[in-house]
């Protein structure tokens, strides 16, 4: 499916680039730029969760925003109640993961088709949107946290040094946390994919029947993949909430759900770098659209989605990579990497 470097060399290169960005960015751009990049990174983590379950697990979640939003809300509610942010961060990963596990159980053990999985997940996120949207008023408070309905929750406390609630993170610290998390998630997912578990996951994407006939219970594997994806999306939501100290139901909305699919589709299905670059690129595009009046963001996103499905379904990273492969000497191109990976 992919002809992108997924061997250890490509992987190291990506991690290296990540670290350069991690330490380099605060040196070269303004504080405003760092803050801007932080939200891009939150979206990139979100994109990795979608890219992982869709591009490698073959799971068609159209509502990954449910877990992203849940992560954000769980962080907000628990940090307001607890003060210290350590456990809230963990909860922001664990609760969406658990929710994904529950939902996944019904979907994968019910053996519904890919299209149904898409529709059910989409429905879940829309209904979460509707539910949270209507939670204004005093009735809907969890401990000291008021959910705030469509107005959302303002003034969410920032991260702090674990154990020291008074040592709150500033914007630069948040950047290090966000980018560090992105690199960590990338390494984690790469590790999973390189393991034998990961091989079976990709095999299920290729041919679920064959995997079953070889004696693997594909449902359990898909459930685990979906759960991991839920946790990663939750972490993304946690970073997103920290970025603006704010969260509102739009995070569950259709636009949010579509956006992450667009990141993955534009960047490249079946790669991990692709979704990250897709997130950066599309977020940048949206930020430009936001500054002018003529073009509507929904219109542009919709057009991008239609255009990529019809014209470039494999996404930009694989297309660019095979383009480079054709220009470079044979040794670097195409299948060499598969062999290397197979033997590693």
């Amino acid at each position, binding site marked *: 499916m992919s002809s992108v470097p997924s061997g250890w060399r490509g992987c190291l290169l990506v991690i290296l680039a990540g670290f350069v960005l991690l330490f380099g960015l605060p040196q070269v751009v303004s504080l405003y730029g760092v803050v801007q990049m932080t939200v891009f990174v939150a979206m990139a983590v979100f994109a990795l969760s979608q890219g992982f379950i869709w591009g490698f697990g073959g799971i068609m979640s159209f509502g990954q925003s449910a877990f992203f939003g849940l992560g954000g809300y769980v962080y907000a509610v628990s940090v307001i109640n607890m003060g210290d942010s350590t456990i809230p961060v963990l909860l922001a990963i664990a609760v969406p993961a658990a929710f994904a596990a529950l939902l996944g159980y019904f979907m994968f*053990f019910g053996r519904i088709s890919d299209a149904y999985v898409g529709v059910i997940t989409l429905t879940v996120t829309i209904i979460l949107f509707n539910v949270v949207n209507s939670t204004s008023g005093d009735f809907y408070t969890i401990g000291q946290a008021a959910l705030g309905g469509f107005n959302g929750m303002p003034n969410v406390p920032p991260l702090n040094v674990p154990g020291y609630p008074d040592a709150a993170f500033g914007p630069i610290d948040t950047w290090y946390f966000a980018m560090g998390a992105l690199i960590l998630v990338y390494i984690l997912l790469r590790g999973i994919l390189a393991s034998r578990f990961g091989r079976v996951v990709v095999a299920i994407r290729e041919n679920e029947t064959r995997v079953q006939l070889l004696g693997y219970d594909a449902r359990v594997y898909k459930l685990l993949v979906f759960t991991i994806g839920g946790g990663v999306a939750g972490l993304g939501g946690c970073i997103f909430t920290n970025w603006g100290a704010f969260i509102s139901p739009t995070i569950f909305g259709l*636009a949010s759900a*579509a956006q992450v699919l667009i990141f993955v*589709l534009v960047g490249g299905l079946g790669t991990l770098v692709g979704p990250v670059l897709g997130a950066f690129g599309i977020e940048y595009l949206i930020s430009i659209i936001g500054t002018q009046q003529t073009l509507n963001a*929904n219109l542009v*996103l919709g*057009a991008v989605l239609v255009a990529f*499905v*019809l014209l470039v379904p494999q996404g930009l990273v694989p297309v660019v990579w095979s383009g480079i492969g054709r220009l470079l000497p044979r040794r670097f191109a195409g299948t060499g990497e598969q062999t290397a990976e197979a033997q590693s």
Partner: protein
Amino acid sequence: MALTGLLLFNTLTGIATLVLICLGLGIIYGMMKIINLAHGEFVMLGAYVTVFAANAGVNLWVAMLILAPVAVGLIGLVVERCFIRFLYGRIIDTMLASWGLSLAIIGIVTSLFGNTVRGISAPLGSFPIGHYRTSLYGVFIIAVAVLAVVGLYALLRMTRFGLVVRATMGNPRMAAALGVAPPRIYMATFALGAGFAGLAGGVLAPVSGVSPVMGAAFIARAFITVLGGGPAIITGTSIASALFGSIDEFATFLTTPVFGQVALLLAAIIMIRFLPQGITGRVFRRSL
């Protein structure tokens, strides 16, 4: 007693509304195995057509019952010709493309008419149930839903068009051998489904806030119902609408409309575990 009557009437109206917003989606899904994620936007367009036509002086009934379905049916035709037909057989890609269309339509409507909520007032006044008063327009919605179901049934059962459509969906190659061009049938079916979505938008325009993002309010319920109904469009949609409409209405009555939707979702998720093919995947398999 009066309260029971009111609750019953509200449930019937709820079911009828659900039937209306599901039929268009159900036709396209049942006949073509395409899940049209732009369905909510087709409904929205139907509502806009109705509001603008009514404001321009067109008779309200003509606007909602004729103009809205025809206009949206034509839009469906264009959408099918320009996008959907390139993606037949690729279910996920069709879903993604129709989602892109959905966003684009929202964007276009927002650019043209602004992100404001419009409305037209519901005609027909009200009538009493005991000492409660309720809208007579609900009766009209129920009537339209019943007529739409009966009309669709007659169309598929009794006309030549219906026969050809059923033949094509059952076995495209066979139909092609009989001299029917499957692409034309797909085109017509998609337009028909879009037309029903437009009708739903028209009829519901007076009772919902008409805005570019109104489709999202319908789409979750419509998906659950159509998938829950299973492959037989009319029987499936009707039974599932009755089931989910009642659950929604009762949970709403006991709590709030939001928990009505949550109850709906829970019911649907539990159902897919045990009836993954939907209701008509298990029973009434031979129905339409």
